[in-house]
């Protein structure tokens, strides 16, 4: 059997990776909670954000951790604009159309990236990419630790925004009762777009946290979006706390099953959980009753 410190290392790795998964899921679950649709362009947006980090680093020499301050507002604006001026007009007020429009957008984004960057797998090399912090017998990767802490900070900020600001109240109002919110003077179109913008901004932050240790190619978002979808289902559709806890659980499951069943089968645990949750607790851990 494996020694305890190996198990703990894998556990720590899983928690740290899981936090980034949670961050990616936050955007997905938020958009679902408010607009009641799955944003199929989520994975492609993440890929686009990762390429943006790559360009910021290779062309402008901007460190990924500094790029976060440029890319987060940029992607918020992009998300806002795309929802307000493309998705919303194209959906003609019918929610199921939004699904198709986001699917179409994901195809456009992925293929545009493929045309622009070809299918090469790229990564960036930063001096701290392989630095470690020693905690007892554990060597924790610095970029992963940064990602872990940053993910929690973002989740906290998002929660504060939703709980204590007027925009947050409006978002929650629209999520609960769209018509009622509109009658009380909330601009529903604006709130939809803000929600989409927040989702895209979360992805931009996730991309900046991922790139120091990760690789990017035009299809990389798909790998994450499947995991994120599982997390959203596990945590409960639309629940922020659910996304956070779900992300950590999935990260740990992936890491431990990778350790015990081998890298090639590492993702099996995730999809087993997905099926089990759908069978036995379709509302998820924190989900409201349907």
């Amino acid at each position: 059997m494996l020694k305890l410190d190996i198990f703990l290392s894998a556990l720590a790795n899983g928690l740290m990776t899981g936090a980034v998964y949670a961050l990616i899921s936050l955007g997905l679950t938020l958009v679902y909670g408010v607009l009641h649709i799955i944003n199929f362009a989520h994975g492609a947006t993440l890929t686009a954000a990762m390429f943006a980090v790559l360009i910021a680093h290779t062309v402008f020499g901007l460190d990924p951790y500094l790029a976060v301050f440029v890319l987060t507002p940029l992607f918020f604006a992009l998300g806002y604009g795309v929802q307000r001026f493309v998705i919303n007009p194209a959906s003609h007020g019918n929610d199921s159309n939004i699904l198709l429009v986001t699917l179409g957008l994901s195809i456009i984004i992925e293929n545009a990236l493929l045309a622009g960057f070809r299918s090469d797998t790229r990564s960036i090399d930063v001096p701290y990419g392989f630095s470690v912090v020693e905690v007892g017998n554990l060597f924790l990767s610095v970029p992963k630790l940064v990602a872990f802490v940053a993910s929690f900070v973002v989740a906290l900020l998002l929660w504060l925004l939703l709980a204590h600001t007027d925009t947050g109240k409006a978002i929650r109002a629209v999520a609960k009762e769209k018509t009622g919110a509109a009658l009380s003077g909330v601009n529903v179109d604006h709130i939809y777009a803000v929600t989409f913008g927040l989702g895209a901004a979360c992805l931009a932050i996730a991309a900046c946290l991922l790139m120091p240790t990760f690789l990017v190619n035009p299809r990389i978002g798909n790998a994450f979006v499947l995991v994120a979808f599982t997390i959203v289902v596990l945590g409960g559709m639309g629940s922020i706390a659910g996304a956070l806890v779900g992300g950590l659980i999935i990260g740990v499951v992936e890491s431990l099953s990778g350790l015990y069943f081998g890298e090639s089968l590492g993702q099996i645990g995730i999809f087993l959980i997905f099926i089990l949750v759908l069978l036995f607790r379709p509302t998820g851990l924190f989900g409201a009753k349907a």
Partner: protein
Amino acid sequence: MTSINRRTILRGAAATGALIAAPGLVRAQAPAIKIGILQPVTGALAQDGEYGRLGAEIALNEINAAGGIKSMGGARLQMVFGDARSNPEGGTSEVERMQGEGVAAIVGGFASPIVLASSQAASRYDIPYICDVGVSDQIVGRGLKNTFRFGPGFGNVTSTAIENLVKLNDAAGKAAKTVVIVHEDGLFGAGMAKLLQTQLPPRGFEILETIAHPTPSRDMSNVALRIRALNPDLVIPSSYYAEFVLLSRTMQQQRIRPKGIYAILNGAASNFRFVKEFPDAANLVMDCNHWADPRKPKTAQVKALAEQGGRFWLYNTPLNYSCVLLLADAIERAGSADRGKITEALAASTFSDHIMPYGPTKFVNGQNMGAAPVNTQVQNGDIKVIFPSEFADAKAVFPAV
């Protein structure tokens, strides 16, 4: 001051046009022979593909500069490049395109799955196919008349590697007893692992575990953790470039220091880019792999050309360089661009003017019997040959700790 007007531009354009057209006019009598160069230059294996293409380009330029194919009136060789996109489907679709363009032969493929699929596709049109690297022994075991492999297959490489490993270990007083095998889970790595599992135990090595990983892998933490838990004397990795770099850096990060890392046909362990970019992670890594013959004077010339513009010296370049020369020699002797005649000439080849440590070429069922790997070790930022002893330029440092 002179001003640029329409007339100046026209004059310049005419002169440029004449310059470009001139060589074409001189050589117009012999039609060019199209040679398909197939390499993965996008996707996970893009780096290997680029360096393979480089070798082929150097050879084609050299042949054309020396007057082309003399038995065909100085016919020039013209490259038809195909990007295999790092997967078998990409390889076969490029073979179809090359068939459409009427190539006389195809050189390259790099990875075993690409070579297997594309040589099969080429065989339908009887296009002679010279495999540059692909080491899976299925490549030459299928009875395809069109397929030739100039380099060694992994049966040969593995037995040489094991032979040399035993020599190395005996010289160090049997320092290594336990082994962990790390391999990519495709045709190349999995086949290698299977061979090692049967061949290492009879020679006194205990295999603690065989760890598979996919290509591309984004994280090698779990593999490194398992190695740390098992604490083997020796790690034997068979992976492509990116994954081995990731693994060796993660091992360095996790302070995992086995007595030796003995790679077999590894994508990074005898790659100067790895050595230059991550000297600490690379130091003392050993590899049994393709390597150009340092005794041949032409090797240094090709190396100098290859390293222009900050590029690195990878085995892909001398192998592809040699494969294209081998093909040109066959066309020269065939005196024709006819595919059947080139295939016959290749089968009868005794070509020895290449830069690999192989001796004269002799194909048996498509496999070059003289092909042999070389053992290298990264020592203080350089890649040294440690076996065979005929041209070794350093003594192996083993055990490393």
